[in-house]
């Protein structure tokens, strides 16, 4: 029994090192000066300088950071609004066309974005939105719709009809019912939709890569890669850039751990 427990602890600690070492190494290296890094690349937390962070911020990574916030917030809120609007009738009606529309949306979950890249690139160029945040918000919303509509229809179809019927008696129209009854009751599912999409959009890379070219319009993943391309020999500086880009997500997770886990689990299992 004791042996077994010791075995479990050993295994748990092996996985701990496996998961955490790269991240510990990342943060430790970002606090070293370049000469210190070459002198002892593997020593952990022997140097503490914030110079790399200052340099990264001066290189304009904060702009990318801000772009990521703008793009993620706008995309996720638009998705939450239009996906729940569409999900309401889709969860309530039974005619054939309805099911076809639902399936059309759902199939989107499986699609590789590559199948849409070239036309979206050409289209964005021709209407003059190429290399702007607007260019990526469109595809972000579109590709977040399938999973969102899926989660929301499932949730809304469980809201009892009687609630709407009594509101109908009082003369409320569909839009009123939607905003005053359905939407407030859908809050838990909306939370899932929010978390799931925010994480994915925050990290999205390929649309940004294809649709944005100027550094000032880049989102964080793209700005990060750009920085990597330019300063790849300055290991501590790149490590500082990676840390800076990752810390917000790590902090957000620490404070909302249960919600994030639930959001991802529901998003995946129900999707």
């Amino acid at each position: 029994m004791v042996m077994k427990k010791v075995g479990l602890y050993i295994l748990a600690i092996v996985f701990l090192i496996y998961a955490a070492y790269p991240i510990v190494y990342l943060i430790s290296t970002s606090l070293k000066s370049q000469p210190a890094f070459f002198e002892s690349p593997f020593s952990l937390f022997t140097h503490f300088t914030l110079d790399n962070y200052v340099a990264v911020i001066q290189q304009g990574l904060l702009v990318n950071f801000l772009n990521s916030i703008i793009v993620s917030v706008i995309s996720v809120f638009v998705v939450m609004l239009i996906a729940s609007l569409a999900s309401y009738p889709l969860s309530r009606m039974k005619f054939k066309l309805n099911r076809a529309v639902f399936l059309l949306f759902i199939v989107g979950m499986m699609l590789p974005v590559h199948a849409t890249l070239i036309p979206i690139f050409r289209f964005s160029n021709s209407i003059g939105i190429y290399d702007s945040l607007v260019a990526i918000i469109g595809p972000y919303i579109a590709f977040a719709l399938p999973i969102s509509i899926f989660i929301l229809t499932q949730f809304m179809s469980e809201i009892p009809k009687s609630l709407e019927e009594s509101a109908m008696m009082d003369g409320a129209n569909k839009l009123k019912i939607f905003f005053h009854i359905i939407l407030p009751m859908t809050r838990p599912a909306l939370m899932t939709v929010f978390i799931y999409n925010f994480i994915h959009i925050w990290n999205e890379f390929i649309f940004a890569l294809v649709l944005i070219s100027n550094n000032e319009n880049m989102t964080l993943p793209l700005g990060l890669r750009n920085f990597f391309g330019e300063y790849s020999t300055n290991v501590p500086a790149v490590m500082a850039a990676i840390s800076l880009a990752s810390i917000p997500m790590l902090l957000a997770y620490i404070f909302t751990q249960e919600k994030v886990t639930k959001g991802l689990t529901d998003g995946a299992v129900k999707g």
Partner: protein
Amino acid sequence: MPIPSDIYEEKKISSSKGKWKNGLVIFLFIAPALFIYLLYVVYPIIATFEYSFHTWTTAGEKMFVGLENYANLFADPVFWTSLKNNIWVVLTSVFIQIPLGLIMALLLVSPIKGIRFFNSVYFLPFLVSTVATGMLWVFMFDPLNGIMSQIVSIFGIENIFWLSAPETAMLSILFVVVWQGAPFYMILLRSAIVGIPEELYEAAKIDGASSWQNFKHITLPLLMPTIVTSSILAIVGSLKAFDLFFVMTEGGPNGATEIMGTFMFKQVFMNYNTGYASAIAFVMFFIALTVTIVIQSINSSKRRKEML
């Protein structure tokens, strides 16, 4: 991601048909989502299909070439290498990532102290964006100053050029794929394990079952649906793989880590072969669609059997 055809079947009964008579109201509710979806998903796929039968001259003129792009594609060894590499990603995800996630999930429900701490730390790799992960591991795989070389040098292995040698590049990236993705399956499986009723284990305890027997006869069978869901997610996700490969090697060295995503990307945005790249993209779409249909039909035939 099984599509639940039963959502509709169930709700039909309690439909409130009469109240939605106004077709315009329905349309207005669905229209915003449908518009964006048609514009950014449906139309581009159709356009990709159409482009795949064309080529563009240097003057920018579009020319119909029939099936030429597809004929060239299927004769292109790079295409077959990239398809093979995509299959490697799928296999790694299903047979290494998910089992590893399962082991971590089991550890998190075992009688050890500090579960919350272990849980949080195990999950961290998943939270670092794929681009950041790729960059971080490029340094970890550095032949000179990287920890991976340091580790293998303990065993007397020297001078491994992880990402720049064709023999090791693919394996190195797959290692990172596992590192990043396993925590996701860990949380999926852990929440499924927590959902297994305690009584089942208590009954088994009375019968004197060992923990291995418990696992084999109770935990594993009850986890099967989640494992299947995870596998579907892994397969679909692997077909979409791009970021790690693009950031770590761009498909190199010499095409050793080329996957369909990087192959397609390079053809259009570096070689400007729009028609050829469209053919690759459409093949990717076709494979994803086929996989979906196969999974769906297995799912629904299983459901039918269960009903009998």
